[in-house]
């Protein structure tokens, strides 16, 4: 058994393990009770797919697959960001702290109120 066979077996077994974890995350995204559970599961799934693509680029000896992984990372980030912004309220409630209040979008202290 040469070292090439050992590397191929290692990459293949790690890829199969990642495939099982990706399947588990797909099930998690289906049964997630709220929308944030689903978005978070898709985020973790994207990370695992990126790692799988990076391993496959070594396994197949194709260096362009690393570029695919980079693009996948950017698209995964954009997906999470756009979904999160979509489900945020348009104008979130202003946080009210005991020391100061928000007036005209700027923080005004007690002295400014007087």
């Amino acid at each position, binding site marked *: 058994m040469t070292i090439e066979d050992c590397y191929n077996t290692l*990459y293949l077994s790690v890829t199969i393990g990642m495939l099982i*974890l990706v399947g588990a995350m797909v099930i998690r995204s289906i049964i997630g009770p709220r929308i*944030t559970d689903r978005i978070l599961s898709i985020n973790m799934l994207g*990370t695992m797919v990126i790692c799988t693509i990076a391993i496959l680029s070594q396994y197949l000896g194709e260096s362009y697959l690393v570029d695919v992984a980079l693009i996948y990372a950017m698209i995964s980030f954009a997906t999470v960001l756009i979904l999160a912004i979509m489900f945020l309220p348009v104008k979130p409630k202003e946080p009210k702290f005991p020391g100061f209040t928000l007036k005209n979008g700027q923080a005004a202290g007690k002295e400014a109120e007087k």
Partner: protein
Amino acid sequence: MIFEWIRFFIVAALLIAALISFASAVFGAYRFGFVMNRMHSAGIGDTLGIFFIVTALCIASGFNMDTLKLLLLIFFMWFTSPVSTHFLGQVEYYTNPDLSKHVQRIGGMLGDEKTEAELKKKPDKEAEDGAD
């Protein structure tokens, strides 16, 4: 030849460590009952898992153009993972009606009428004390 085998065992150990960290992330996603706990376990896979994978592949391939691309990948993932987690936390905070069952906020939760009344009362009291 012996150095090749040493390199192989280092790569194998790093890849198995990555697999274990991803498995712990998935285990946490099933084990925890609330999104903000699940974000914690998702962070393990986003940072530690991808670090082990990229380090293993850099050692396996040697120094070439792929190494720089993989380092760019790890740089990108380490900067974007906290941003997406922060946005998800914001969505959860502003849209979950049953948030006070799971988390506590110092100074009271937003939208809770009782604590908001207390917060309104408190600055006035301090102002009166100052006037006296």
